[in-house]
């Protein structure tokens, strides 16, 4: 099956406005970014609208559902509830940074695809970043740990079992990949 609808382009960033604009510099998926932003802009909007990371999903905008989860210096955060200025000097990772440059899926991505750890897919970017953060901290988490971590994000479709299995599988695939590298 082909990629879904791409006929409607995502337009470039709206120009920053007002006297309160500030300049920040951070690493986004390994690349340096310099942006001028409104001082009260949230990270979610900057990522989606200024930097074209539309894989970061906005939903509750209350820091509750976790659909907008990104990694800031390896820590999963709700980008809807993080001021953009707070990532000045930090390393930010989004779902766009997971796959290799040639399109090869990361272990987490392969695991979620294989185990069906998504349905509508709106929570998936956040769940993937959560998983990435978890596995960096604990490469072989047990079921209870996975459940605790996944409980910070909402999925209304799956009933969570397939997500938790996806995380377990991601741990296996990551270990295998890291083993290959050694």
């Amino acid at each position: 099956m082909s990629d879904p609808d791409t006929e409607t382009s995502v337009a470039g960033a709206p120009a920053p406005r007002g006297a309160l604009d500030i300049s920040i510099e951070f690493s986004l998926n390994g690349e340096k970014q310099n942006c001028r932003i409104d001082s009260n802009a949230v990270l979610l909007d900057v990522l989606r609208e200024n930097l074209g990371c539309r894989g970061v999903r906005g939903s509750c905008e209350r820091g509750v559902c976790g659909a907008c989860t990104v990694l800031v210096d390896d820590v999963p955060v709700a980008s809807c509830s993080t001021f953009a200025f707070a990532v000045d000097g930090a390393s930010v990772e989004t779902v766009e940074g997971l796959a290799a440059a040639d399109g090869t899926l990361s272990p987490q991505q392969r695991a979620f695809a294989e185990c069906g750890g998504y349905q509508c897919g709106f929570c998936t970017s956040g769940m993937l970043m959560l998983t990435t953060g978890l596995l960096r901290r604990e490469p072989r988490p047990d079921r209870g740990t996975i459940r605790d971590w996944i409980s910070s994000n909402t999925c209304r479709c799956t009933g969570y079992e397939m997500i938790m299995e996806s995380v377990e599988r991601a741990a296996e695939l990551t270990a295998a990949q890291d083993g290959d590298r050694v």
Partner: protein
Amino acid sequence: MTTVSDRSITRSPRTEARNDVVDDRVANGGYRIQELPTAPPQHRLVGRDGPRADATAKVTGKAVYGADIVRPGMLHAKVLRSPHAHARIVSIDISAARALTGVTAIVTQDEIAGLQCYGTMVKDQPVVATGVVRYVGDVVAGVAAVDERTALAALDLIRVEYEVLPAVFTVDEALADSAPVIHPDEPFGVIPKYGQGASASLRSEPNVSYEFRYSTGSSDVWDTCDHVFEDAFHFSRMNHMHLEPFVTVAEASADEIEVWTSTQAPFNLRKELSRVFGLPENRIRVHVPLIGGGFGAKNGPKADPVAIRLSQLSGGRAVRFCMTTEEVFLTVSQHAATLIVKSGVRADGTFIARRSTVLLNGGAYAEHSPAVAEKAGYRMPGAYRWQHIDSVCKVVTTNTVPAGAFRGFGGTQATWASERQVDLIADRLGLDPYELRVRNLKALGEEFVPGESGIDSDLVAGMRVVADAIGYHQRARTGNRGMGVSVGVKDGGGINKPAMARVKVTTRGDVLLNCALTEMGQGGHSAMAQLVAEVLRCDPARVAYARIDTDNTPFDQGTNASSGVAVMGQAVRTAAENLRDQVLDWAGAQLAVEPAGLALVDWHVHTPDGAVHDLFPMIMEVFGNTGFEFSADGFYKARNDRRAPLEAPCVFWEIGWAAAEVEVDPETGRITVLQLAVSGDAGKVINKIACRGQDEGAAVFGLGQALFEELRYGPDGELLNAEALLYRVPLAEDVPERFVSITQEQGHGAGPFGSKGMGEGGMLPVASAIAQAVADAVGAQITELPLSPQRVYEAIAAREAGVSR
């Protein structure tokens, strides 16, 4: 080209309980079945493992949803909502807002002259409130501006003067003689042509927008009952809480409308917009990207009318209206309900007669309520054998958020009351609730009611599957633990639902599937691509699901009623078969052989003598340098039958079975669900991952309703928990330690390869199974949802005080 489904069950039943499908991980405290009874060996794809077709787009973040759509020069809309539950609009002053730099248009009651109201069957909802606001959150005005911030600033400058009117929030308040009439002018409405036993009326009472009735059998049988029990049940109201909010991007002039919108039903939306805006349907184009969850909420216009009108008022510039989650809560909800059930039974537990009255809290506008009402009323008998049924369901208008389609569609309300009363009857007669069900459940093939389709699952066998999965029959009654089982049924596949599909294949054998089944998470696109690949015997990766827009996509009646696989699947399969036959006819002519003996495999033609002919060079030779595309259509509609109560017999019966074990803390009333087993009958699995996800997702939806999900209103009709922080949906930590879903393949479905729809059935029986487990544990029979600690505690206390319910 019409395919008429054969509803008589003549195939040999394959209904053995699949106890053997539970794998050893379950025994080890795990979670899953391992192997489904698989498709016959000649099927390469159907029923096999394999990732869904939308996997890569979704795990890379590249999937495009309505919320991602951007058009050049796009404006942004925000709306002003009523702070009052019921009030007359005295005046609206928009002058200051209009003067704000960056504001391009404002829509109020003065800018919608000539536009019609919308709603399913009863059309009573205006584009923006006109004259009167009817609930806290009703849209009073909309603003389009260069960005959301400017639009929000403009809203602050709009001055609305209200005269507050008395309001009603519950069905009892709304039905009282003294209640204010919420819609004084009778709205336009239509009643379908019901069949035998069913009827409906509009505005049967001042605050009743729709009343459905169904009756069959003679009421004389009440005289033969040894016992008659009457009980009242209450059903709480949930929010859909789909993660992608309602969103529309509209480009509209006076003559033409184009929208990119998160809708489950593009053609229904087009028809409704045609009515509202007075334009022919061929001047309206609806595009549907991927949908970030819907669960029924995305049927019917949501963000669309306001966005369209604002675009018209902004000179045709694109206007995006993306609601916040808080606004989603104020747009549509599930129906709270009061259900009164009177059942007559013999002393041995044989069911004889059931009379029921369902009062749905429909909120301020009819929305999808009439259709939900007919289903809620119709499904009150459950899957049981009654000699007489008399059922009434009323949609009661109140000053609350409009209620509409919701996973289970009236079946959840009906199952809660119907199944709960079965348990109460068992309790009173001293019978085992499981045995009472077995004694009265309809058999495979037995008509649900006269003129209706036969039940196409073995209900008893299915119940045994979930009961065995939790060790129901081996349970030792210890402490405050208990178990319950439940079964819910709903007619699936929609009513009178036509579906069309088109398959076309390029010269090289790349396939484009065109049909309007929207992908909202259920895996429908994947299943459809598998069906096409199965028939054309090609790699499913070669099948692309064409983007949906109403100008180019063949007609469909909407993605709802769990109809995707069974209804659209038949159209898709037929289209693929027609295409295959067309190609083989053509190839036969080229090769001068009879087409009957030819096979199409991976865009090669195999002849009976074993020769293989690549189609690509054959096509190039005949059609020239660009080649050619073969194209074929498919159509499906289940048979009409005027005897059927709801216009046409249902396509299939969607069944959900659940069994639960709980532990109740009598000191706090807190329930811990120790085990939950759910099962649906897929008939025949097309996509394993999708079937499993549908059942498990639905079960956890039901778990939320059972334990804690509930929209709560303040004294003035304001929603108290209308945001993600306060309205809690199940999280991973809420899923029971032992949670098993078992997809059955009983094989009697009307869909391709015997499949049936999934997605709603798993929600139906969960709350009632848990409630019975609570009764089994502590003897407290609870009739109201959710089973909150307070409610459980009070029920235990009342029981201990010897207070009869």
